[in-house]
């Protein structure tokens, strides 16, 4: 089981649900790694729904583990992509041609769901048409509030900004527009005094 119970937090911290079938004219599903499990669960609730869906899947570290099982669901389209960035041109094209009535199902890591949601909202998909379910890694996308660079796959607090090198502490304050949590300089008031990194949620 790849589900994680996120501790309760502040109002801007995203809260994920469980994917459920919804009435709609088209269904677009985007998942990475263990997110495939949520799509398989969705298919067992409503196989017909998934058969009419367009799935974009990024296996990440899971390799071939889920690919055949997703193919077996017989979706209208299944596109397996090596990364979210590589899938972006396709996703943007799909969104540009989409119509109202499109339902969006996002599942997997927070980073994948956040980025996909940000693209969707820019294309005009209302929030109410987007569902999310977390599966797999709890690593975060962090934006350094100082240099604006985004550091991917952060698992410790504090961490080092991969762009400017500052030591940043991890906040739960989250921006849907940027699809990232906020990182702030941890030793601003006492330069050099950087606590030992601790794994997130430990």
């Amino acid at each position: 089981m790849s589900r994680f119970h996120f501790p309760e937090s502040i109002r801007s911290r995203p809260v994920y649900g469980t994917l459920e079938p919804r009435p709609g004219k088209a269904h677009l599903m985007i998942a990475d790694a263990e997110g495939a499990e949520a799509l398989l669960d969705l298919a067992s609730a409503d196989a017909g729904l998934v058969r009419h869906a367009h799935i974009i899947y990024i296996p990440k570290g899971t390799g071939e583990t889920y690919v055949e099982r997703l193919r077996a669901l017989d979706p209208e389209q299944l596109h397996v992509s090596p990364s979210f960035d590589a899938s972006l041109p396709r996703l943007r094209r799909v969104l540009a041609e989409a119509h109202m009535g499109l339902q969006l199902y996002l599942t997997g890591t927070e980073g994948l769901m956040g980025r996909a949601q940000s693209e969707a909202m820019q294309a005009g998909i209302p929030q109410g048409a987007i569902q999310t379910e977390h599966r797999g890694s709890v690593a975060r996308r962090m934006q350094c509030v100082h240099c604006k660079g985004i550091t991917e796959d952060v698992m410790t607090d504090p961490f080092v900004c991969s762009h400017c090198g500052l030591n940043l502490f991890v906040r739960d304050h989250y921006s849907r527009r940027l699809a990232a949590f906020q990182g702030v300089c941890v030793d601003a008031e006492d330069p050099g005094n950087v606590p030992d990194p601790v794994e997130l949620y430990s």
Partner: protein
Amino acid sequence: MTAAPRKTKAGAEKIDVTVSAVVPLNDLVTRFEFRRTDGGAFPPFSAGSHTVVEMNDGGRTRLNPYSLMSDPADTSTYAISVRRDDEGRGGSLYMHNNVRPGDRLTLSYPVNLFPIDLRGHKHVFLAGGIGITPFMAMIAHLERMGGAWELHYACRSKALATYADDLTRAHPSRVHVYYDDQDQRIALEDLLDGQPLGTHVYVCGPGGMIEWVHRTAAAHGWPEENVHSEEFLAPQPGKPFEVYLCKSDITVHVGENESLLEAIERCGVDAPFLCRGGACGQCETDVLEADGTFEHRDHWLDEDEHAGGRKIMPCVSRFTGKKLVLDR
């Protein structure tokens, strides 16, 4: 900052106006145009706004909300169109029978509970009968600022199709009119399908039409935030009842044809309000004691609040029973 700050006044700021024109459009609908009595410019407003018209009907103050249908950029004139309702409480009858050019009235500053979503890439307007009025202002705004829109207008008959001719002439490819008496219906499902992302739908008309649009859109995968509606609930008459206002220490008798809010105002007690139609939440009042049954007719409180009996919306809701004490 004071230790005892000035209380926010009930209702909205007011503008003194003089009626500049009264234009009957058909059997049921008349347009009223206003200029500011002091000759100044009206405040600009956002399309979809309404104003509350204050009328003095033989000593009885009537307050009726009407959509502003004029071009929001035209600050010389405000215009409303009123549908005569012979069975109603008398506000529209008063307007039709008594108001003449040159008369002085008071309007509230515009208030908008039905705005255009400015992020929208396209706006689809669904009007039923007199529900056409807010869309007149929205169309003027989008034409001026540039924006994609289309109007689907359901009327009872050609004779009662207020402004339909003007609209079709000005915007032949964007305006579609459907006559009830010719069995023409808006093909809503076809209309909803194939709309680009970022399309918003707005419906203004009878309650049944509004409910139909919301239901159909949801079934076709449209989230609520892209479907907007406005319906002015007129307070319905009901059995008279008594209410004790705790803070003011007076007992108010609510008559058959006045709302609880109107009765409170009649007794000189200042109670907040805004839309006077059960939709905006501004008049929400705490119930201190109740022994009886509430008749909640608003769209503001949720199910639990309706069942809980600790709150009431006096602009449209009523009560029957032995005792009602309100925190006013």
